[in-house]
């Protein structure tokens, strides 16, 4: 890393480099692209993990968290800020990392920062008529500013992009679709969009020409809410982001706070969390499998998956009280000790699941129609996956080693043996198979831990009010659909100054346009099922 520091200083002489959790480089906006280009093309930081807008009070900034696809554990943070709060502009990096496309639109939504040369500077979550920028500290959240509006408005068919011209900035309007395109709205209410997602799909007969994905139909402003709540209070929001990975997400946020506050988590809690995470992962992958089959109209397969998932939910219910959303992790450990039946139930479940997997392969994987529809459909190349920042089982189907349980182990993952499932094809079949194989690996992890849950406390003693020391904290965990991340900017209070959640599904939906072009309508549904995005995770 010393080497990188020198290289950075050689390129950008007035960069401020700090050794924090990750190496942090602060640059002026005009040097941002120079530094970004160097890191992207010369140093191999090809993954844009997080892009977070922050209102520092006197300036509006953006924090970029970059990682390498060769080694996902190596990260670097770039920070930049503009002091102009009236007409804030920053250069875009969306040409280097396509993942920045939607993230920059999100920053524009929340903070009003315009990214120069961004190809599609529309609002992502909010409507065009929204007044003010909600995550700015001086935002007026009063009811009169944005009153409840029950009118229906047409969607705009144009987008804008801002380019710098001489000293000024020029606004260019562009049409989203061509004149003769047959545009079909798939969503927001549609059986196969896995939530309230809206694809405006331009068709040529049955062939997809372009997809324009629209989000924000169920946006809840979780990040804004978190700014007003203490850390323990904000925990339950994470359960409601990706409700199928509730446990894993909450685990991530707890870990971030624990690390920042220096709380030692008892070993028993670590192991319980790991087992719960893996059960949750199986649950999530089962849903993914079932829903994909249902999208392809195999209802029987769907019911089989749901039948086996029910057993996991029963296990959750017995210990934590919750089924879908467990509310089980707390800062310092878990809320309650495991139920006396827990170990036996989990042990009984493992062979049932193995038998179920065999049945799934017999019922569906070998089916000739299913194979025809999945093999070679929606191929996501390694480059595309990296450019869009895709992680999780979908990226591993494109040959990227991105399993954070292996790369940057947390909880009890360093104590267990398991394989990282990698496939090279990158098609729907590879993504489908990856999920089923990961269920097997999760069972393997659980098997190793279930008999070795150490005795001791299940939760560390914490103070009634948890204050995090001033600073920035990152935590990345491997969710069911990809890497989930938390970014906390603390000013030393009991509430966060800025809390950001990295959504893995956002990258997946962002990549949908590229990988489904040229396919049929039926392929779009298959690809959607194999990508397995979930909308509340995007609409935080």
């Amino acid at each position, binding site marked *: 890393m010393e080497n990188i520091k020198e290289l950075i200083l050689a390129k950008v002489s007035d960069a401020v480099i700090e050794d924090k959790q990750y190496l942090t480089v602060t640059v002026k906006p005009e040097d941002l692209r120079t530094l970004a280009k160097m890191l992207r093309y010369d140093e191999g930081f090809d993954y844009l993990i997080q892009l977070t807008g922050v209102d520092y009070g006197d300036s509006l900034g953006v924090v970029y968290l970059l990682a390498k696809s060769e080694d996902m554990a190596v990260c670097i943070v770039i920070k930049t800020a503009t002091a102009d709060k009236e007409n804030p502009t920053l250069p875009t990096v969306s040409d280097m990392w396509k993942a920045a496309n939607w993230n920059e639109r999100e920053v524009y939504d929340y903070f009003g920062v315009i990214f120069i040369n961004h190809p599609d500077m529309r609002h992502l979550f909010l409507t065009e008529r929204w007044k003010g920028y909600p995550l700015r500290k001086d935002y007026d959240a009063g009811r009169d500013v944005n009153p409840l509006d029950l009118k229906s408005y047409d969607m705009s068919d144009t987008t804008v992009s801002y380019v710098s011209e001489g000293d000024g900035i020029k606004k260019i309007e562009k049409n989203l679709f061509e004149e003769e395109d*047959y545009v079909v709205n798939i969503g927001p209410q549609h*059986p196969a969009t896995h939530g309230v997602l809206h694809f405006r799909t331009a068709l040529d007969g049955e062939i997809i020409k372009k997809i324009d994905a629209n989000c924000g139909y169920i946006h809840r402003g979780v990040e804004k809410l978190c700014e007003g709540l203490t850390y323990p209070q904000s925990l339950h929001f994470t359960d409601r982001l990706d409700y199928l990975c509730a446990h894993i997400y909450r685990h991530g946020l707890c870990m971030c706070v624990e690390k920042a506050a220096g709380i030692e988590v008892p070993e028993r809690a670590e192991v319980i969390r790991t087992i719960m995470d893996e059960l949750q992962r199986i649950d999530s992958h089962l849903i993914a499998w079932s829903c994909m089959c249902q999208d392809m109209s195999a209802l*029987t397969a769907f*019911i*089989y998956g749901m039948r086996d998932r029910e057993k996991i939910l029963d296990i959750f219910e017995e210990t934590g009280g919750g089924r879908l959303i467990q509310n089980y992790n707390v800062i310092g450990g878990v809320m309650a000790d495991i139920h006396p039946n827990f170990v036996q139930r989990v042990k009984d479940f493992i062979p049932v699941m193995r038998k179920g997997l065999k049945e799934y392969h017999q019922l569906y994987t070998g089916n000739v129609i299913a194979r*025809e529809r999945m093999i070679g459909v929606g191929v996501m190349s390694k480059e595309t996956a990296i450019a869009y920042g895709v992680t999780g089982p979908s990226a591993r189907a494109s040959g990227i080693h991105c399993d954070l349980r292996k790369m940057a182990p947390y909880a009890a993952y360093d104590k267990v043996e398991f394989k990282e499932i990698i496939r090279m094809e990158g098609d729907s079949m590879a993504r489908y198979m990856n999920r089923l194989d990961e269920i097997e690996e999760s069972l393997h992890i659980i098997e190793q831990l279930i008999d070795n849950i150490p005795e001791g406390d299940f939760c560390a003693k914490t103070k009634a009010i948890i204050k995090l020391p001033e600073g920035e904290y990152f935590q990345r965990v491997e969710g069911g659909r990809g890497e989930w991340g938390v970014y906390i900017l603390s000013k030393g209070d009991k509430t966060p100054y800025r809390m950001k959640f990295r959504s893995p599904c956002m990258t997946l939906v962002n990549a949908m346009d590229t990988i489904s072009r040229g396919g049929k*309508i*039926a*392929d779009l549904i298959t690809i959607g099922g194999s990508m397995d995005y979930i909308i509340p995770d995007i609409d935080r």
Partner: protein
Amino acid sequence: MFDFSIWTNWIDQFLRTNLPEFWALAIEFVVVGVIILALYCIIALALIYFERKICAFFQCRLGPNRVGPYGIFQSVADMLKMLIKEIIPINHTDKFLFYLAPFFVLIASILAFGAIPWGNGLQILDFNIGIFYILSVSSLGVIGILLAGWASNNKYSMIGAMRSGAQLISYELSAGLALMTIVVLSGSMQLSTMIEGQKDCWYLFQGHIPAVIAFIIYLIAGHAETNRGPFDLPEAESELAAGYHTEYSGLQFGFFYLAEYLNMFIIASIAATVFLGGWMPFHVTGLDGFNAVMDYIPSVIWFFGKVVFLMMLSLWVRWTFPRLRIDHLLDLEWKYLLPINMVNLLVMVIVVIYGWYF
């Protein structure tokens, strides 16, 4: 074997002796019409219950079990619900065609339904081009589907209708050719003659290899014609919401629903009649005792037994396979089924010419 024509002839004679011919015929037409419509509804209701129960067992569920014992009145309750539901008028539709479309689908299936031989002497329409008649009226249904998709003024419906047009027209070819293969063997298009010709041995066994191939092709093509999974592309609920009938509600939707189930029944009955002897019992030449026992079972039961068996196959496929994609669907028809069918027809002609059948 009991001949139901004894009853029907007696009724006919009775009416004709007591009434002028016009009134006798008028009463017969009305009675037959009412019987057809009643049977149509009852069979549809029974089928809906049957399918829901069977698919529940496939999926480790219980299925309907609340309305009546084992839920047998569930579909009656559903029917009542469907009857009293509001028909929602949609703006921007072509009103006339929109309301006309379900009748096309319904009438096409009723017309085909009328020609089915139910049992020995129980057939309403029996004339020398029976098979040809059934093929032609059952393919009228596609007009209704196209109209529904077009008149709805909805993009999902439109795509569904286009798919349906492409699908039904191509699979009609295979279904027709498969039946023609057997017509070559039987030498007649009249359904009663065809059943009579299967007295000693069903055509499936008489025509051995080409007949079995034609049977399999007919099952596939017939299944595709009913628009049911894995061939349910026109309605493809996960792609097109509900395809061509997205905008229909209440009884209008009910008509499509009824017709779908009845088409399944009609396809199964044609297959049973043409390949498995219709109401004709299973006979083995030489085993007179066995044949007598078989004859003891009423012909209606034979017919329904065969139809239920074939529908079971259809349900099995429906609830196991995922949906085909449109290009795979057309590939299957034009690249596999149709060429095989044509060669098969030729083989059957050779078999018949040289008398290589049983």
